[in-house]
């Protein structure tokens, strides 16, 4: 991979941050509000059509933003694992008059299938929205946008550090697992073998993380993190243009219509 010259990198910070795509360059707040409002459409409907349409819209947005394939793969995995499980559980457990498949004391009913479809597609639409948001918005941009709205840098640090800690814990777990493997402990194989190798490492992984916390706090203090004066930011987000609020307004109108439609029975 070629490395950009230092002055080019530095010049990048002199400009407004851009990810090179109009959707990716939307304000994180615009995206957050729009996605939440679109999710409302999926939640208020009584059938499965609205959540499926919403999910398809999310896939379309991901493709327009240039993140489609990765998003689609992630969302399909979610549909196959979580969506299917939710559907099966609902289909089996919701009681109804029209029995489709009798299974001893329980039965798959037409009402259960309907409810399973509605519930699983709704949950998947919510998951799709959340996944889309994090696929489109770098966390740093989100926290900067929140700081612009008055959230304290300390709070935004907690958000960023929490997300990073997930990655860090995963990396530490891999290191400990590799160390176990080097000592001859079997760490690969079926799910039971993996579980047997994995559970004992949880204690060292969390203890390592706790031990590092103190040093990390000192390192942050050394970077004037506790300084009380105003802070600046190397990354500059562009000011939110008025037309982005029109997008939010349109989404709000669609959500309001969906809520009304849900009340009067259109959806």
């Amino acid at each position, binding site marked *: 991979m070629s490395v*950009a010259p*230092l002055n080019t990198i530095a010049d990048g910070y002199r400009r407004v941050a851009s990810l090179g795509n109009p959707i990716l360059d939307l304000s994180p707040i615009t995206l957050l509000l729009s996605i939440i409002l679109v999710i409302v459409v999926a939640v208020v409907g009584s059938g499965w059509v609205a959540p499926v349409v919403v999910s398809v819209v999310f896939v379309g947005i991901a493709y327009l933003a240039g993140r489609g394939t990765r998003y689609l793969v992630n969302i399909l995995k979610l549909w196959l694992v979580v969506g299917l499980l939710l559907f099966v559980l609902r289909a089996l457990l919701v009681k109804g008059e029209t029995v489709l498949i009798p299974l001893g004391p329980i039965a798959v009913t037409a009402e259960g299938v309907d409810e399973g479809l509605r519930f699983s597609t709704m949950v998947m639409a919510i998951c799709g929205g959340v996944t889309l948001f994090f696929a489109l918005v770098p966390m740093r941009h989100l926290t900067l946008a929140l700081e612009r709205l008055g959230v304290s840098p300390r709070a935004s640090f907690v958000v960023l550090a929490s997300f990073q800690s997930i990655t860090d814990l995963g990396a530490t777990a891999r290191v400990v697992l590799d160390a176990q493997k080097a000592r001859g402990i079997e760490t690969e194989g079926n799910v039971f073998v993996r579980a047997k190798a994995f559970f004992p490492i949880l204690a060292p992984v969390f203890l390592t993380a706790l031990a590092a916390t103190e040093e990390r706090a000192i390192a942050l203090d*050394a970077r004037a993190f506790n*300084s009380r004066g105003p802070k600046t*930011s190397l990354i500059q987000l562009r000011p939110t243009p008025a037309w982005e609020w029109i997008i939010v307004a349109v989404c709000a109108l669609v959500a309001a219509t969906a809520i009304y439609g849900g009340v009067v029975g259109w959806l």
Partner: protein
Amino acid sequence: MALATLRDVRFTYENADQPALNGVTLELEPGLVHGIIGLNASGKTTLCGLLRGLIPHFHSGELTGEVVVLGKSLLDWDPAELSRTIGCVFDNPFTQISGIRDTVFEEIGFGLENLGVPREQIIDRVSAVIEELGIAAIAEKNPNELSGGQRQKVAFASIIAMDADVMIIDEPTSQLDPEASEAVFEIIAQLKARGKSIVLVEHKIDLLAEFADTITVLYEGVVARTGPTRDVLGEPGLEAFGVRPPEVSEFAWRLAAAGKPLPFFPVTRAEAARAVSQRIEEVSRGDRTA
């Protein structure tokens, strides 16, 4: 005004049986590089923590004696003010990264952002430090994905960028190869030339001999030796405190023991080269025997 004055300082960490520092009396002058050396658990990092105010503001324990930093009692310093005045970087590179910045460039600028430095100045200062440390190739990399040595350089760069007048640097080269270690020491020398005061914990005695103005040897929480580098390293018996003298000093002692002393006692490689050349000249002139 002294950089730091310690009088009969004892500190025992909470729940510890033994004191980490046990009657330390020390005076550090400003504008110099002060090397601290000693075995593991000899009190080096505790001394750094004390000078930086982490003790008693961050680490609790029993502290007695008097510590004066830049003319003010340690207990009177506001911790936030002290953190701005004294930059520090500790030895574990995996905990010296903020973990919340996406590129090395942003990581190095993090401290300046916290100080409220304007963006243009941050960009200029970070660029200069990246050039100085020769890490332009990793400027766009994610700091969380760097090797230990690279992280160490980034952590060091971050503190340099903040341009504090006093810097406490704990083993900055522990994960670096010899070439990179030497480069770090060159930068420390440049910082000194810019008037910075530096307290440097380091095990690489040959490099310390070359760059430190004073050396303090700690042993079991006590100052075993302290003084100008030449005086401390020139006196035999350092091994008793778990410190090997510089290779060139050992070389000079062995020659002296063999009855062929060098014309003067070297502690750095450059001095050793001069001493050997001088001796060769003396032998060739017939002043001495080989």
